[in-house]
Structure formats: structure tokens, C-alpha cells
């Protein structure tokens, strides 16, 4: 009976794992197959291992340019979000002033809003300000999309830093700003890392606003650039699979480094801590 239970446990765990990880692995394997193998009967392991699709992707498409744009936009979004989000969260959770509770509620409710509501007004406004069709415009929007959730995520991290430590720093002669940057921020660093990664991933993936606000090929981000190829009647599968692997890599690497804090931040928002 116990053996049976244990076997069942592993069967279930392996099924769950293969349902959620399998598809990506399958695509990664296929991206190294030759075109003829790709389009014939599926094989589990490539008969001939080739980098052909990766070479074609880099040679024939603007993939590298899109990649660079995405890196610029995502890093800028993540960094700005981490700075203004952390300052905002410190203010909301640590300071006392009238309207603070209202502000907090508005922040939480804003991520339940249908964001498509601001699509047209933002398009019109950015066109008027002449920052449409630019990376700046996208960063402006991406920070807005992710900052409320970031404040929420920081809540439990910030609550774990005792007020007494800041008081001690004040007594030792630090001024207010120094206590925040020299004492508080280093202690809350995992939380800030979590919101940085979350903002990076959101921006790296975001399609709706990026695709409406960008027209010129030279400023397109990865999702916008690649969506165009996916729309073609005859999709060049080899190239698309290689592209999807390369787009996934930064997300996976980022998660490998900071995933622990990321999960911690995610669950802290849902589980009352």
C-alpha cells in the first residue's frame, strides 16, 4: 500500500512536470532539427543536430535588433519600476500622512482594471507628445502597467525589516535619506530584486501596448517583431522555433538567478504574511 502510494505520487508529479515543462522542451529539441526532419514524422532526438535555423534567424531577420530593443526597454522598465516602486512602497508602508490608505487602495484596485481602457487615450496622447513609435513611449507605459503590482509585492518584504534598525541608524547620526538608502534598501534587497525581475519579465513579454505604439521596424521589441512572422501564411517553422528558444533564454536565466525571491514575492502577495 505504501509502495503503491509512493509510486502514484511520482507518477502524478512527473505528469504535472511534463504537462507544464514538456511543450517548451519539445520546441527546444525541434529547433535543432533540419528542415526535412522537422516537417516529417516527429522524432524524439534530432537525427542530425544543426544550428542552421539559428544562423538563418540572425542572418535573414532583424532578430538581433528586436532583441536589443527588448533588452533596452525591459532593463529601463525594470530599473525605473524598482526605484519608484521601492520609494513609493516605503512611503506607503513606512510613513504616515493623510490619504495614504486611499492611495494604497487605489494602487491595489488599479491592477484589476481592464488596461485596454487606456489603450486609445495613451495612443492619442503619445502621438501628440511625439513620443509614439519610440522606446521611451513603451517604457513609460510598461512602468505604469507593472508598478502597482510591485508595491503590493514589496509589502511583506518591507514589513520584515524592523523599524528599530532604522531608528538605531537615526540615533547614530544618519539623516532620513541615509537611513533609507544605507540601512533599509540593503535589508529589503530581495524584495527589490523580485520586483525588478517581475517588471523585466512583464516588459519582455508585453505585446498589446508595444504593438500599437510601435510602427517602425527599427524600434520594434521582440514580441512585436516576431508576431509579424507568426502571421505569415507559410510559417518558417525552423526559424520560429529557434526564435522562441532565444526569446525564452533571458527569462529563464533571470528566473534561475532570482526565481527564489520572485516566488517569495508572488506568494507573499496572496498569502497573508
Amino acid at each position, binding site marked *: 500500500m505504501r509502495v503503491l502510494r509512493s509510486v502514484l505520487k*511520482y507518477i502524478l*508529479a512527473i505528469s*504535472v*512536470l511534463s504537462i*507544464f*515543462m514538456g*511543450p*517548451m522542451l*519539445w*520546441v527546444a529539441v*525541434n529547433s535543432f532539427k533540419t528542415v526535412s526532419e522537422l*516537417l516529417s*514524422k*516527429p522524432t524524439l532526438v534530432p537525427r542530425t543536430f544543426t544550428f542552421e535555423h539559428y544562423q538563418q534567424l540572425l542572418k535573414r531577420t532583424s532578430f538581433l535588433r528586436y532583441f536589443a530593443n527588448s533588452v533596452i526597454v525591459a532593463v529601463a522598465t525594470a530599473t525605473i519600476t524598482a526605484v*519608484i516602486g521601492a*520609494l*513609493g512602497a516605503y*512611503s506607503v508602508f513606512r*510613513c*504616515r*500622512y493623510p490619504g495614504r490608505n486611499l*492611495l494604497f*487602495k487605489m494602487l*491595489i*484596485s*488599479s491592477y*484589476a*482594471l*481592464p488596461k*485596454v*481602457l*487606456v*489603450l*486609445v487615450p495613451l495612443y*492619442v*496622447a503619445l502621438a501628440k507628445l511625439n513620443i509614439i513609435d519610440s522606446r521611451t513611449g513603451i517604457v513609460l507605459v510598461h512602468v*505604469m502597467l507593472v*508598478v502597482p503590482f510591485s508595491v503590493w509585492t514589496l509589502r511583506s518584504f518591507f514589513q520584515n525589516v524592523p*523599524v528599530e534598525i532604522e531608528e538605531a541608524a537615526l540615533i547614530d547620526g544618519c539623516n*532620513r535619506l541615509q537611513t533609507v538608502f544605507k540601512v533599509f534598501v540593503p535589508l529589503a534587497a530581495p524584495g527589490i530584486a523580485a520586483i525588478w525581475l517581475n517588471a523585466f*519579465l512583464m516588459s*519582455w*513579454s*508585453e*505585446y*498589446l501596448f508595444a504593438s500599437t505604439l510601435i510602427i517602425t521596424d527599427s524600434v520594434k521589441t521582440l*514580441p512585436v517583431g516576431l*508576431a509579424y512572422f*507568426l502571421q505569415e501564411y507559410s510559417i518558417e*517553422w525552423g526559424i520560429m*522555433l529557434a526564435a*522562441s528558444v532565444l526569446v*525564452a533564454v533571458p527569462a*529563464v536565466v533571470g*528566473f534561475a538567478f532570482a*526565481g527564489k525571491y520572485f516566488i517569495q514575492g*508572488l*506568494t507573499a502577495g496572496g*498569502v*497573508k504574511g
Partner: protein
Amino acid sequence: MRRTYSNLLRDPIFGLLLVTPMLLWLTFTLMIPMIDAFRISFTSVRYLGAPGVFVGLSNFKRVLADPEFWQSVVHTLSWTVVNTAIQFLGSIGVAIVLNQEFWGKNIVRNWIILPWVLPTIVLAIVWKWILDPSHGIVNHILFSFGLVDKPVEFLSSPRYALLTAVLINCWRWTPYFAVIVLAALQTVPRELYEAATIDGASRLKNFMHVTVPSISSVLKVVLLNSFLWSANIFDTIWLLTRGGPLSSTTTMPIYIYSKAFRNFRFGEAAAASVLMFLFLGVLAVLYLTKVLREEELK
């Protein structure tokens, strides 16, 4: 002495200064555009840059008279309800499986969220490839087992497209919520189960009477978030099907997007988005009163 420092820490002016950058940012990119959406919904903007002409309620009338709009409402409802149901039950199931003790559990518990971490464009490429009628593995398997006699057009037949998109979206979001439910499961004290088992409770009873009540506040948050976020999803559907075939996957966000950037009827698009805001607003209020009652700031 101690009080003084405590008060200094809570200096109101300092607090307001720190929150200012975020506040300004959100005012200009979220608050003002939101108000502007309402204004645009009452105007007719035929091309960008032209000042809108006030047209009263005519955008709303046109949208409400459009059968495609109502079709999108129905699609949004079925998309959202089915997504929420599968994600909610699925995440509990996955969380229970992952909550067991097994070799490699820590790695699996972290990496299970991979589908959510991957960008939507990757998800679209992955599933379009797997479900491709001529080269995809799923059709190959169905075919070789003799379950179908011609390839299933998962994403390009009006019959299956919406359901396929729902399942793909669930594939992405179930692990996300499972990670949250799992964290909640781990906070349930073991003694509670032991006590219940001594009292003769079965596994099922244990689950219904110990687990569920202990994690119910998290389950409520999962349910509401799953619902609100599903209703708002655009990119997954758009990248998989572009709302087609024959509008069979056109939900409200897709309808609004197409109205604005395919038909260039910005006024009508704004009107439709205001309507969607009002529909979801009811739920958002529910969400707020539910979640925020428990989340008052100290």
C-alpha cells in the same frame, strides 16, 4: 526618546516626497488617460490628431447595436468562466501534488511556473507548432492511434479555436496560481491534520474540513484574480488566432483593439472599453471590498 525617532521615521513630508515620482507617473499614464477614455467615448475621432467632435451617446448606441459586440460579450463570458474554473480547480490539484514529499520537490516547485515566466509570443509559437495540423505532434499522435481520420484544426476551425485558446491560457496560468496555493498549503499546521485523523476523519474530510477553511482567504484571492485577469487577456488570444476564425475567439479586449486599430473608430473603441470597464467594475468593487477589508494598513 524612542517615540521621537519613531515619529521622525514617519515624517509626513518625507513620505509624500518619496511617493511623488510614482504618483506623478501614474497620474499621467493611468489616471488622466482613464478620464480621457470617457471623454473620447463621447466624441467622434475620424483620424488621429483631429480634435474630436462631441457626438453624445451615439458611439455607445452604435456599439450596443453591433451584433459583433454582443458576440464578444458572450465570448468573454465563456472564456472567463471556463478559464477561471479550470485554473482554480487545476491550481488546487497541482498544488496538492506538489505539496507531497518527493525527490527533487524543491526544483519542481520552483520551475513549475515556467509557462508563466515565458513571454506570450513564445507560448504562441510553442502551441502553434505543437498543434499544427500538418506537422504538429498532437495531430501526429491522434492520427497514429487512429483517433482521427483527418488532422484537427485546433486553432483554425471556429469549432475548436476558443476552447483550444482557453486550454492554452490555463496551461500558462494554472502553475502561477498553484504556486500561490502551494504556499498557503504549507502554512496549514500539521497538528490540525493529526488531530482530525485521530478523530477519525478520512482524507477527503480532512481536505474539506481542515485544508479548505485554513486556506480559504487565499482561495478567494485566487478565484477573483483568475477571473479579473482572464477577462482582460488580449495577447494570448491575439497571437494565437487574431480573434478568428470568423470572430470565434473575439473577446471584448480583441473587439476593442480591432475597432480602434483595424477600423480606426477610436470613439467606438473607447465606448466599448468604457462598457467593459463598467461590467468589470462591478466585480472590481466586489474584489476591493473582499480583499481590502482584510488588508487594511496598520
